[in-house]
């Protein structure tokens, strides 16, 4: 999103990285490598909108929205004594305050709304608005320093508590979050449900903190924190942070630093901006710098090939021969017959059938469990519960299924990367041979591979991020929430006569059970259909992104070798005087490039 790009207050690390990337872009332009320039331009855009997600989760009525408000010194997230937040709210940076509704589509559709009218859209609605489409989320933009580095605070719906479809959706959001604030209030110690949920959150995101709210109101909050600490002993690594949103809000209004300190928020702010935004920003800056390093290396290799020929014209034939061989190999990387490409295509095919098989199995198990439940209880009594249970269970299974998809897609993207790297790494090494003095130590090469890998993996993550973070996953499960089993026409006769009471009841019960089972089947079929389609779409998107990514890399390499070859063959035909002049030029260029690379390497760590 470029319209809210470049906040003045962007973090120094990001600004430094942005400078490097811009230098790299200028170099690409100067050396006629628009293809590499485009790659850096894309990197540059992610620096503008890094999207560091801090997701706020917790049982309902624990003060999640109040916490978000107090953290950001605002009151945009509607807070209500009764109704809970019903839509995920993404609070991010914007030079002007504003809000827009998100609707499910690829890319998501946005509809600007007035900030003042946010409440109507966000708070839990008793019935879905007649006729209207249900938005899948709300984006709120605020000119806040804390958000300027690309931080996005996500307030998740509290409806239905921790064992609902929404909670499962929040869990999906957690899986891509950079940090999670788990919110529980000081009214009581953590419950079993909360601890279970927290455990799952922690499995998915290792930067998780447990925020104990409402410390102003509960005199015994210290005791609660202590009790919670004991419960959390089973979950090492989760810190606890007691805060009071009420005091913080008041402190912000009155600009009262003492009160602010009392509210406990300074620690939370430090956690969010330091450990979260700081860490994520550092990672992002490092990966951008790694891109610059990779680009520099390619351009350098081109100059180095030319330089080798210029320095030792006698060896030119051999060098040209080797360069031609390299070019052939690079060409192999480009085609669909390339190993990485085959790995990708086969992998996606396997993934598709495995994930679908997994989903099918999960849904079948659920259907069987639902049947057992229906046989055990009378649907007339328990239909609401079966409905609630099934919807939540379905959501959980979908999340599990997505987790599988994500893990497997990660694995695949790594395999593809390895195959690509095996092939292209040799090429890069061969290109580097012409300047033995410049051969980097082995360890450093591996280090760079890690960086390269990081930027490659980042690409794969972006593909997944689109399908997980907020938009798709919330929508997916949100629309599941809209999908209901529907009422069963129970046909309860008010049988009052003595004789008919039992037999009539029995007959009705059988009828109700079969109706209930049919409703469950219909629901599960629909779920399978929708989720299955979403999975296929997601995989297709992953495949496309990975393919485009590596094709572009192969194309860059191809151009690098072609230009090296060209420069080398030009060099052969030069006079001695021309050669000496050109050598001096090249050395100057190489020095400049190495200087840039050195700086980038320093940032890339």
């Amino acid at each position, binding site marked *: 999103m470029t319209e809210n790009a470049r906040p003045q207050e962007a973090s120094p690390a990001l600004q430094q990285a942005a400078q490097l990337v811009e230098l790299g872009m200028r170099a690409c332009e100067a050396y006629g490598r628009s293809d590499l320039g485009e790659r850096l331009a894309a990197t540059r855009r992610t620096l503008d909108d890094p999207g560091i997600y801090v997701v706020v989760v917790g049982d*309902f*009525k624990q003060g999640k929205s109040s916490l978000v408000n107090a953290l950001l010194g605002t009151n945009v997230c509607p807070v209500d*004594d*009764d109704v809970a937040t019903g839509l995920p709210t993404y609070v991010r940076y914007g030079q002007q305050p504003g809000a827009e509704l998100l609707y499910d589509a690829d890319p998501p559709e946005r509809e600007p709304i007035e900030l003042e009218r946010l409440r109507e859209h966000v708070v839990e609605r008793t019935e879905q608005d007649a006729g209207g489409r249900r938005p899948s989320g709300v984006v709120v933009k605020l000119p806040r320093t804390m958000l300027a580095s690309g931080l996005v605070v996500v307030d998740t719906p509290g409806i*239905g*508590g921790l*064992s*609902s479809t929404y909670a499962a959706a929040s869990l999906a959001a957690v899986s891509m979050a950079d940090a999670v604030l788990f919110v529980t209030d000081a*009214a*009581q*110690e*953590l*419950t*079993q*449900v909360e*601890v279970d949920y927290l455990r799952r959150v922690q499995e998915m995101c290792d930067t998780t903190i447990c925020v104990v709210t*409402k*410390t*102003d*109101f*509960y*005199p*015994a*909050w210290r*005791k*609660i924190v202590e*009790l919670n600490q004991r*419960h959390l002993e089973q979950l090492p690594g989760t810190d606890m942070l007691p805060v*009071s949103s*009420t*005091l913080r809000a*008041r402190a912000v209004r009155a600009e009262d630093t003492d*009160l602010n300190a*009392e509210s406990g928020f300074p620690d939370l702010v430090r956690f969010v901006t330091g450990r979260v935004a700081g860490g994520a920003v550092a990672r992002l800056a490092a990966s951008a710098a790694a891109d610059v390093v990779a680009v520099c290396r390619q351009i350098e290799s081109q100059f180095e090939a030319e330089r080798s020929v210029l320095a030792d014209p006698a060896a030119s034939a051999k060098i040209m021969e080797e360069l031609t061989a390299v070019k052939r190999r690079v060409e192999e990387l480009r085609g669909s017959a390339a190993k990485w490409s085959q790995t990708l295509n086969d992998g996606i095919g396997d993934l598709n059938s495995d994930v679908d098989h997994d989903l099918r199995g999960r849904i079948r198990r659920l259907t069987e469990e639902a049947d057992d439940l229906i046989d055990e209880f*009378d649907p*007339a*009594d*328990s239909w*609401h*519960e079966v409905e*609630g249970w099934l919807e939540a269970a379905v959501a959980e299974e979908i999340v599990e299924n997505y987790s599988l998809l994500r893990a497997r897609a990660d694995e695949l993207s790594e395999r593809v990367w390895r195959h690509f790297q095996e092939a292209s790494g040799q090429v890069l090494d061969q290109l580097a041979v012409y300047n033995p003095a410049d051969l980097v130590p082995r360890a450093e090469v591996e280090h760079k591979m890690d960086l390269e890998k990081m930027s490659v993996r980042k690409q794969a993550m972006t593909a997944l991020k689109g399908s997980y973070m907020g938009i798709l996953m919330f929508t997916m499960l949100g629309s599941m929430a809209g999908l209901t089993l529907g009422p069963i026409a*129970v046909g*309860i*006769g*008010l*049988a*009052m*006569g*003595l004789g008919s*009471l*039992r037999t009539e009841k029995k007959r009705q019960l059988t009828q109700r059970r079969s109706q209930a089972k049919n409703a469950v089947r219909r629901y599960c079929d629909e779920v399978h259909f929708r989720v299955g389609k979403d999975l296929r779409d997601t995989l297709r998107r992953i495949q496309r992104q990975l393919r485009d990514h590596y094709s572009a890399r192969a194309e860059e390499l191809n151009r690098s070798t072609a230009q090296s070859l060209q420069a080398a063959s030009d060099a052969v035909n030069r006079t001695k005087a021309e050669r000496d002049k050109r050598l001096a030029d090249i050395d100057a260029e190489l020095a400049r490039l190495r200087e840039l690379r050195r700086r980038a390497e320093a940032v890339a760590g």
Partner: protein
Amino acid sequence: MNLVERTRATLAKALDVYRGTRHEPRLAAVQDRFDEPLRVAIAGRVKAGKSTLLNALVGERLAPTDAGECTRIVTWYRDGHTYEVLARPRDGEPRQLRFHRDGGALEVDLAGYAPEDVDELVITWPSQALRTATLIDTPGIGSLTETSARRAWELLTADEETPADAVLYLMRHLHPQDVEFLQAFRDTEVSRPNPINAIGVLSRADEIGVGRLDSMASARKIANRLSTDPKVRRVVQTVVPVAGLLAETAATLTETEMQQLRRISERSAREVEGLLLSADRFVEKMPELGLTSMERQALLERFGLFGIRLAAALLRRGVATTATELARELAGRSGVEELRSVLETLFFERRDILKSRSALLALDALTRAEPRAGSEAVAAAVEEIIASAHPFRELRVLSSLRAGWVSGKPAVLEELEHIIGGAGGGVHHRLRLPEDADTATVTSAAARALAGWQQRAENPLTGHELAAAARVAVRSCEGILAELSGEPDGSRTRAAEMERHR
């Protein structure tokens, strides 16, 4: 024969059948229970404020309360002539336990038992409030200590006769787990989804608005919404907001506390607001108040931040000037009075039905599980009462209504719910008349209702369910008219008797 007499007769018949068997003591217990006060269990999720509410209802600090999870053992509180604590261990004979009480809650010495080895504690305590109802305090569900949670569950959801006749279900805000729990508590034989024996309490109501002075109003709004929520209606009769801590403290307010509160109220409104901004501030700031931090902590424990804010405001505005007045004001605002009157109409006035129901369920279970010569006839009698006794038929209509199975115009359904006693068994409740309406008004209203329901029952266009319900309503109207013309009616006299008790 009315319901009570029929039930008693059936119980006697069953005793004859099972005399000399190992089931005789059990039946005798059922019979005893039939004449005991109503047993009301106080249930809810962990930390819902169950013990606090129990204390408020008894008017004494009996049950221990704490910030952490506290009640681990199912504890019965019943009226008696002496003070006594009895433990029923999981294995072994019941035995008396030592206990002491200095000022605060009862401290029971478990005599070496681990809480999980004790099935239940029975506390006998001479108390006016316990004379109308035996109260059962339960460990919370959703507790991290699994055995205690399971215990509450077992107590309330036992398959056969439930140890409790009715349940007060405390919720802090309706949570999915709450609904699940309430569902399990209902039986399915006497009437289907059964809201007759459960009342919802939106407990810790002062916390809903996080202690703002208008918190109770906000809580009331939420309680009203919950009461009309179909999901909630199916499982509880109504939802009442109660600030339990405030109610408990109001019932036990001391003169010393009054003096301390007065000191706070003498400060300016702004100063007090700053002081009461947070619990920590109240303990630490404003040394000129002349209260030690221990005293302040004690006040917080007793009143909560909301209670102190409210009490200070009431004293400053002169709404209350003495400890008695303050106690009355606080009790009124805590919602406990409203809960008492709801308990009266919905539980105590229906004592006969609830008691009969518990007894019949026990008989039903016994005859099914242990048939023997003559038990067939008992089973038939039980089924006959369940199917034909008018109060049960009313309950069946009520629960069908609550479950949304009877369709009709909302106004008609509302009238139906009242006429069959859904909002209370008294005549004025049924006819929706003021309590002081004169006999002529009541009679003509009853006659009009009778005509209306007769018409609906006979109208061929009336839906099947509504017609069946209308026939029950007709019988209810006839009952009212009979009662007005001087025929004795069980429920009415019972209600009057209850009045006398209080």
